[in-house]
């Protein structure tokens, strides 16, 4: 191979590697944006769910604060708490919120309202700490892209069973 041919091959190889790098970076950026979209959608889902749930529990707490919740209400509340904790996993206050374990005695409405209020405030903090995804800049960045796939379900891997530790 002549030195010119070698140099030409090297140039082509570098060009190819750059192109591959560019495509890889684009894919990563696309995935990042899709994940942010998923996060934003998850926020709106929780916000909407919280509106209805809080109003309902607050009404019941005002009527009968000491009354225990029904099993169905408790299931809905616990599912909501799990989703909220999954979304706001870096929020130390929400991290301390726990699901209710009835063990024969369902929690009272007033306790449910207290927890929902904490989550409501957590969502406000979440919006402040993630200004970018709620800003026009994000919408503008999104408009520059043509996505091949839908944003993932943010809560999809939430219920994967933990293995626990053997020894």
């Amino acid at each position, binding site marked *: 191979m002549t030195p010119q041919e070698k140099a030409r091959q090297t140039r082509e190889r570098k060009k190819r590697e750059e192109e591959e790098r560019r495509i890889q970076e684009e894919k990563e950026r696309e995935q990042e944006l899709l994940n942010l979209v998923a996060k934003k959608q998850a926020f709106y889902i929780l916000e909407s769910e919280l509106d209805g749930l809080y109003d309902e529990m607050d009404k019941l707490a005002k009527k009968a604060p000491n009354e225990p919740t029904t099993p169905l209400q408790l299931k809905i509340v616990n599912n909501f708490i799990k989703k909220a904790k999954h979304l706001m996993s870096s929020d130390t206050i929400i991290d301390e919120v726990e699901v209710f374990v009835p*063990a*024969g005695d369902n929690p009272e409405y007033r306790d449910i309202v207290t927890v929902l209020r904490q989550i409501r405030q957590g969502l406000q903090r979440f919006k402040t700490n993630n200004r970018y995804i709620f800003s026009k800049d994000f919408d503008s960045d999104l408009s520059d892209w043509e996505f091949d796939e839908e944003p993932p379900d943010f809560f999809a891997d939430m219920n994967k069973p*933990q293995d*626990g530790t053997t*020894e």
Partner: protein
Amino acid sequence: MALLNKVLNIPIRQEDVDFVMPDVDVDRRLGIDPFLLYRSPRPDFQQAHGLLLKFFRGVLETVKEGNLERAQHLLICPEPGEIGLGYTKHGTAGSGIGPEIAREIAYTFKNSPALLARGLRHIEELQLICPGVGPDRISDLTANVLKLFLIGYTQEQCKSWSLPLTKDVPISHYFDFDEFAWRDGYFALPVNPSTDGPLLFVPRRILRILPWINYDDYLGEYKRAFLKPVSRSSSLRLKTRSGAKKQEEGEPAPAPKPIVCKVTSQNTATLDAYIDRKEKDAASAEPSELSALQDRAKLKEHAELLKQELAALRTGNEDAYKYQDLVHRILTFCFHPHLTDGKPQERTHAGTIIRDLVFTNEGTRNFWRYLMQSYVNMFVVFELKNKNEIIGSDVDQIATYLGDTMGRFGILVSRTLEGSTSFNRRKYIFNKEAPRKVILHLSDKNLVELLDLRSALADVTDFIQTLYRKFMISIE
């Protein structure tokens, strides 16, 4: 009061055991409430309740056949002096059901076709239809009809607590269901040193001061059904004698018991409505605690003694039996009436002797009922390890024992809770098994906390429920 343990110099106290410690000189002021047999989750207690009804059905058959003499004979029961319960102020000899009361019962049914056709859903209903029958006679009748059941229970308790049994002790007037007749016999039983007569133990959890179904409680139903308030000017109003208490405006005069009983026996719908209500509220029917077990000073003293014994025990095989015995007493003291009738047992797993205590779950509060429904826990197993360091196989041993027979909730008890091995292993078992198994872990420190709660008359259920919740949250 001369309690059996003091008289026989036995190192167990009332707080440690599941049965009423007989006062050998005077009856304890409590009675057997058959309703507590009915509402018990234990099959043998429910079977005992079934036997009571079977007995009464037999009596009613003889009334239907017109053989009133035989019906009366069947109903005559002496006061069962062997059990040492009742309302006698002095001594242990009460009245039982004599010929007059037996006659009254038989004729009540004979004179009421509605009642004869209906029968009894609970024998305590006799209080509401026969004026001469009160709580004491219900208890006496129950004790006599179920004497064989109480004999079996007594023998079991003596075995559990190593109490002395004397062979061939005469027992009079027990009911033989095969021959449907009263019999006398000889059984291995403990003996009352004051009288040389037999002693029968009664489970604390079937005793109440007043039965759940009782006359005073029924009166409200009766008044709602049959009595209406009358105004002061009404001619229907009874005239009060001078010096007698004046009736409040609109309040009917209290009906005497014979009238109430007569009206009730002719109008069984009201009786049924009352019984339906009481059965619906069965979860609230709880045994009456002995007054000695409500005395905070005495409970605290006993708790301190148990704590001292626990602190003095060394870890290891040498004190393993003492540890089992002490934990048995602590758990009985703390968990009665939620967990009762703890039986120590030994089994072998891969060449290792494992000591358990198996308690019956009475399902008295929501948490214990939740365990029954969610984990099939008719029993609760406590596996005892007289050591500090728990290894993985210790947790595996109790896990293999849990299942459909023993339930899927169990408690490991060891001297300390050092390290994370126990928690990690229990978490692994929870996640691996289907259906899930939950194992909690108590240490000496937790037993001391339970003793403090119990001696302050607090309910230890909350402690275990909180422990359970913490475990479930920590594995989320």
